[in-house]
């Protein structure tokens, strides 16, 4: 590093620091993160093969793959996995389509966007607890406004979050309210950075708006779309707050997602070893999916 040698001033220590700056500046972050994520991962790996009693005086017992074998027959785990996937696909797809549509519309028809943007982005900034209780209030079967709306439309009232068939829908709807702004803002940023020339050329060639969207806008937006989807899917896979406040995983496990199930197993049933095994499955799913997604998108871009 020639730059370091040029600085002849300073004590020996200062010069040593400066020479090794690239390590010294990076090391604290890496040490802290290793402690906060690597240690827990290794611990979970070990715990997943043990039976750990709630009573700390009972020694841990190595049980091999028993915890993983249990996963195969545990109906609640299967339901949790399925619910997590259903929620993720339903919520993220809806948010993406709504967000993209709204962004296209605003980009085309509204000139000074900033004020509108500020209002529309609000839901995702609010504390999730505030979002959860707001929707709990709206869904309330006795005096909630959603049933008032049903009544005015001449439809029968529903139990909403308390109904086996509607509970997942209510969680998805609240999540769509909260996170569509995320998709919307990212898409809008993507649209703002589109080059103008290809569109002028397309216009000269007489390409329809639809063709321009498919052949120009979507390909240009692809990197932004990829990042937005990746981040939203990661978040949806770990859904917890809405379920905790709206449904507690019920009714009849209709909204039991994996992170809520892990919470129950670990902190209500105090079965740490088994909770660790489920957590490992979630971790592997997340890592495999994100790696696959990133690789695929990079190949395609």
């Amino acid at each position, binding site marked *: 590093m020639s*730059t370091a040698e*040029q*600085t002849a001033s300073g004590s020996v220590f*200062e010069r040593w620091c*400066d020479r090794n*700056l*690239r390590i010294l*500046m*990076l090391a*604290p*972050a*890496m040490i*802290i*993160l290793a402690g*906060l*994520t690597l240690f*827990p991962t290794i*611990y979970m790996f070990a*715990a997943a093969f043990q039976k750990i009693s709630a009573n700390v005086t009972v020694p841990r017992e190595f049980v091999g793959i028993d915890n993983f074998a249990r996963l195969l027959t545990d109906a609640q785990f299967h339901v949790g996995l399925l619910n997590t996937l259903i929620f993720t696909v339903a919520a993220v797809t809806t948010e993406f389509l709504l967000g993209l549509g*709204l962004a296209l*519309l*605003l980009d*085309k*028809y509204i000139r000074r966007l*900033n004020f*509108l943007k*500020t209002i*529309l*982005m*609000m*839901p995702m*900034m*609010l*504390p*999730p*607890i*505030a979002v959860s*209780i*707001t*929707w709990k*209030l709206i869904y309330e079967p006795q*005096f909630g406004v959603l049933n008032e709306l049903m009544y005015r439309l001449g439809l029968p009232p529903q139990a909403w979050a308390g109904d086996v068939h509607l509970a997942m829908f209510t969680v998805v709807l609240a999540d769509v309210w909260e996170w569509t*702004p995320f998709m919307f*803002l*990212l898409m*809008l940023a*993507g649209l703002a950075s589109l080059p103008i020339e290809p569109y002028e050329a397309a216009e000269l060639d007489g390409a329809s708006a639809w063709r321009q969207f498919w052949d120009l806008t979507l390909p240009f937006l692809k990197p932004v779309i990829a*990042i937005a989807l990746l981040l939203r899917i*990661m978040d949806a*896979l770990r859904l917890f707050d809405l379920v*905790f406040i709206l449904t507690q995983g019920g009714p009849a496990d209709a909204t039991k997602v994996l*992170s809520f199930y*892990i919470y129950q197993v*670990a902190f209500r049933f105090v079965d*740490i070893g088994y909770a*660790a095994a489920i*957590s490992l499955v*979630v971790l592997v799913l*997340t890592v495999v999916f*994100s790696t696959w997604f990133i690789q695929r998108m990079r190949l395609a871009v």
Partner: protein
Amino acid sequence: MLTRNRAKETALRLAAYLVILIALLWTLFPVYWLAVNSFKLDLDIFAVPPVWAPWLDFPPTLKHYYAAFVERPFLLFAANSLIIAIATTIVSVSVGTMAGYALARFQYPGQWRYQISFWILSTRMMPPIVTIIPLFIFFNYFSLLNSKTAVAVSYTAFNLPFATWMMKSYFQDLPAELEEAAMVDGDTRWGAFLRVALPLARPGLAATAIFCLILSWNEFLLALILTQTEQSVTLPIGIAGRVTQYKTYWGEISAAGFMASIPIVIFAFIVQRHLVRGLSLGAVKG
């Protein structure tokens, strides 16, 4: 032909305005509903059909604010949240800024720079439910459960990678020539970082810090598990505690939820320009 096109254009424009109006109503109504319910007497909260407008439909009251913030310790919960948020933000932003600068500016052998960046990003992707069980056991072992330290430390797990990536992206936007010029003038590498790069990155630094504050203030799952006593819970957990199996204190949670939202909305206004970058961890520059 031209007039038909113009008519079509006008119709489309009107349709667009209609959609935007619906989007605005859809966004604002739930917020309004939370706010308005926090000012209702219990009687009016349970009213069927619902009452909509203060003064017109029902007499507004501050009863629930009094109940939450004077009779019950929601002010203490808010203070807990604030102290935790500030502590984790200071650590995350200072450590993350250095790491972000290193990753933006320095050469590392082979693919290391890319590998390390990616690893730091991947820690941000870790589902918190996976890391919380070992952290719970760890904090329990050191008798740190129900302490602000435990919550602040666990929040650093997601704030630090966030701050690192954000600052990396801001530093990459700055021209390296200014720092090089400072070093030619005899400044050290560290001095160039401190006196040239850091002041230039100040807007990014402020935005990153505000994002960390918001993320920490809003966090739910980790605080739920790490704090249980009334002395230690954060604001979101305090609110959730008033939703019980037997009774939901609608007025109180609406009041506390609305109050918890206000600082966040103000902060969101401040970082509006940086929002897209913050949401995408520096990947999309809005």
